[in-house]
């Protein structure tokens, strides 16, 4: 038998020692500390900073006028008054808020209706070629949301604001009015062309799981097709439509890239772009309050999401034996619908990508003639002279020769690799601590805290980190301008996803598999490397790739935090677009699109499931 020497000390001590040497507790505690520091504290700090005076606030007219002596770090309602109760409230809060709500409402309605219709056509009818159509229609889900807005600019921009004419004017000679080239209309359209994919994917999943006999029963009882649709099909998919609705809505609140590209040139601001502008103008305190407003709106929608979905999840019918999904015959309409679908796919999915690609080969923007063709923006040497004797690309070399691009690409790449690796590892540990410690307070706190970043829109999260790490905090030096800050912020924003992935992976591993190893003397390290890791590996790889793509195309989260030294591909695109330099930006965008698609294909191989179920 074993020696009992290890059992020395008082009972209480032994108990403490044992409880706190359980691996799930140690891991749980370490993670909890990290979460408190990197998720909870920054949010508290955000609140704190918006109610205190910072050094840069000295120059605010309100502070000067108050006559009270300026003191850094003093409690102050200055920012609160500025944002909520002053002449500035209208341009700074109210108008952007209204714009945000308008855009979000518009894009939600458009993308939900389009996504649902598409899902229905693809899952429930005998539309020809629907499998291929479905896969291409899901493409916008994969590529960054702002890609379409860049394409929009290329197609519809006009001389007055865009500096040169777009493809449309080039082809037709018709000048595009400002309201169609920039502002809410194109913003809503472009965002819908990305976000419909969310509704499409969720709703087609739900539709595929409905047994068509439920509908046939309705028909047998004398209901016509429209009544069946309204009374049977719709209620059955309602929960997933609601889920898509709320997801789209909360994403819309925080979206940044598209309103920045299409709104800022005409001074049309949303909360996210206003927040960005405030930070650029050194008005951090005001920006933080806007971030809080965004977090609140987004938090409320997600709370509703949990409420609504939580209550009605079980509503979707589970297909039992003899499950049948009889496609509905579209009759003669079939071909019409098919043509419409093909046109949609060509014009709104493939054409934007083509336009961006074409743009990268143009010497002068907006001239689609062959004479204007150049490879300069890809492989040209710095200072190359163009056909009209001008220096091309403002003297910069093509992106494949440009050391500055390589630096950005290198930053993007190492950021994405580091973040996705760490996110996957932390995800497994979080999953372990949450699942194995189930029922304990520690487990619940880890679960809740790792979910928190989900409710914070990317740009607001960036603002939170800007406030937190612009100065030294405890053992951590000032991180602003460092690469580590980008890693930490991206990692923290990935936490909700990695903890979900880790938790579900861990729930698949029967506790007994671990106990069987423990029984023969395997310690935590051995259990982890020999049992847990091998069994979660495929989820680990898929999670890694997903994080990789997401981080690779991330813009809003880090746009406030990058400096020239730490620039990444997406922020370079943003800068090029800001300065009206589209060819370079579009070329880099193409690279990101290619990476995103490749990554998704790899994920599919690892998960061996189709993105769109039931097609």
């Amino acid at each position, binding site marked *: 038998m074993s020696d009992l020497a290890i059992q020395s000390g008082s*009972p209480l001590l032994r108990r403490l020692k044992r409880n706190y040497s359980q691996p799930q507790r140690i891991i749980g505690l370490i993670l909890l500390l990290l979460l408190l520091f990197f998720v909870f504290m920054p949010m508290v700090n955000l609140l704190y900073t918006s109610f205190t005076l910072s050094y840069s606030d000295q120059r605010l007219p309100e502070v000067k006028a108050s006559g009270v002596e300026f003191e850094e770090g003093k409690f102050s309602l200055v920012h609160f008054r500025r944002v909520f109760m002053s002449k500035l409230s209208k341009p700074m809060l109210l108008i952007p808020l209204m714009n945000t709500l308008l855009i979000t409402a518009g894009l939600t309605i458009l993308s939900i209706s389009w996504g649902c219709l598409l899902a229905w056509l693809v899952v429930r009818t005998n539309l020809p070629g629907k499998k291929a159509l479905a896969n291409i229609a899901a493409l916008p889900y994969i590529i960054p949301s702002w890609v379409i807005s860049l394409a929009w600019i290329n197609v519809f921009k006009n001389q007055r604001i865009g500096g040169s004419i777009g493809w449309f004017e080039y082809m037709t000679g018709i000048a595009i009015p400002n309201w169609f080239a920039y502002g809410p209309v194109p913003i809503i359209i472009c965002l819908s062309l990305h976000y419909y994919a969310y509704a499409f994917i969720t709703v087609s999943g739900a539709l595929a799981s409905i047994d068509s006999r439920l509908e046939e029963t309705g028909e047998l009882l004398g209901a016509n097709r429209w009544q069946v649709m309204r009374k049977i099909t719709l209620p059955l998919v309602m929960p997933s439509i609601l889920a898509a609705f709320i997801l789209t809505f909360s994403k819309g609140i925080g979206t940044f890239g598209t309103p920045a590209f299409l709104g800022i040139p005409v001074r049309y601001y949303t909360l996210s772009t206003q927040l960005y502008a405030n930070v650029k103008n050194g008005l951090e305190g005001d920006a933080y309050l806007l971030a809080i407003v965004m977090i609140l709106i987004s938090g409320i929608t997600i709370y509703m999401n949990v409420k609504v979905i939580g209550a009605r999840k079980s509503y979707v019918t589970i297909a039992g034996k003899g499950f049948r999904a009889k496609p509905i015959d579209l009759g003669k309409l079939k071909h019409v619908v098919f043509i419409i679908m093909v046109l949609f796919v060509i014009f709104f999915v493939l054409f934007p990508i083509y336009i961006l690609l074409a743009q990268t080969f143009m010497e002068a923007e907006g001239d689609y003639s062959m004479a204007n063709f150049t490879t300069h923006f890809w492989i040209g040497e710095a200072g190359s002279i163009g056909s009209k004797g001008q220096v091309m690309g403002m003297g910069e070399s093509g992106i494949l020769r440009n050391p500055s691009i390589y630096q950005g690409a290198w930053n993007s790449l190492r950021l994405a690799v580091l973040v996705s690796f760490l996110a996957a590892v932390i995800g497994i540990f979080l999953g372990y601590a949450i699942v194995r410690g189930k029922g304990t307070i520690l487990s619940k706190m880890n679960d809740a805290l790792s979910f928190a970043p989900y409710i914070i829109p990317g740009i607001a999260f960036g603002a939170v980190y800007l406030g937190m790490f612009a100065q030294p905090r405890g053992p951590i030096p000032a991180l602003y301008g460092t690469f580590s800050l980008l890693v930490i912020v991206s990692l923290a924003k990935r936490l909700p996803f990695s903890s979900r992935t880790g938790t579900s992976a861990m729930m698949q591993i029967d506790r007994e598999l671990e*106990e069987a*190893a423990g029984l023969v003397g395997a310690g935590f390290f051995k259990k982890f490397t020999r049992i847990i890791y091998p069994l979660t590996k495929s989820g680990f790889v898929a999670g890694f790739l997903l994080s990789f793509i997401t981080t690779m195309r991330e813009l809003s989260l880090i746009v406030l935090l990058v400096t020239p030294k730490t620039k990444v591909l997406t922020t370079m695109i943003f800068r090029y677009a800001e300065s009206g330099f589209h060819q370079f930006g579009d070329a880099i965008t193409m690279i990101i699109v290619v990476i995103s698609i490749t990554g998704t294909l790899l994920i599919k191989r690892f998960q061996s499931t189709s993105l769109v179920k039931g097609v």
Partner: protein
Amino acid sequence: MSNTNEKIRLEHITKRWGEVVAVDDLNLKIEKGDFITLLGPSGCGKTTTLRAIAGLDEPTEGKIFIDNKLIFSKKEEIIVEPSKRNLGLIFQSYALWPHMTVFQNIAFPLQMKKLPKPDIKKYVAQALKDVRLQGYKDRYPAELSGGQQQRIAIARMLINRPDIYLMDEPLSNLDARLRIEMRAELKQLHQKLEATTVYVTHDQVEAMTISSRVCVMNEGVIQQIGTPEDVYRRPANLFVARFISNPQMNFFDGTVKKENGKMVVEAGGFRLPVDEEKINGRDSVIVAVRPEDFYIADDGVEYHVDAQLPAGSSQIIMVSRPGEEQVALLFEGTFKNKDGEKMKLAVKPETYNIFDKETEKVLV
């Protein structure tokens, strides 16, 4: 107090999961070389007890000794790690590692002991031979049948030469035929290795055929501990009688009478003699008669044959009297009665059990 023959001792073990009391003040001594079965319906705390012995769960109260050494005490906060208790466990699910081959599964315990590679190879080969699965070492568990998986689980348990085997319903996933084969194998294995075995099952036939002692549990409380013969012939209470019998115990309401100066219990028409002392003044009791304890007698009680269910070498016959519950009979051989006929029955002397109506405890 110290008993050299004793292997495992549980004292006042209680395990609560929140409100649920899974095991309630359980006391159990297991001798060296015993094959003891924990038997009871689903949820009665069998797995919980087994896991407490293994050290996988921590009881809420009580003490556990192995070889007279204290290995668990709630009060003193002593818990010896599972791996230091020198025991092997077969989980209900087998818990074979799905990502490891048969060889890797069995080799794992030896690798944990840091044995040299050639030794590991040798031992695993021997173990595979012992369970007759030599050709399967490179397969994955998913590529094996239930019975083969079970034998891999046994091999993995044996490889470390533990001196206690714990098995949690190891045969419950197998089909009826394989189950009977594996029972015999387990029994032989136990006889060969003479390790103390604690075996969990909810199948009373399995418990009867395989074990040297049976511990019947219900709702976390031990109902009876004894040899299979004991619990079968002398159930301690109604629960045990009901649970153990096969196919089903017959229960009659009995009235105590004095006839010709002798005490008898009248039940189901039968007049069964009893000891006056044991009845101790009660006037109504419950009588239990096993299906095989009836015989045909000319002066017997008349019963009506409702149905006959041949079961191979024996036959189950359902009979009844007007206005009373059906009675099950079990006869060897085939029987040539017809449905609807009458038959006259009597009860073999000294085979029946009598229980108190209130406490449900056995009287006779």
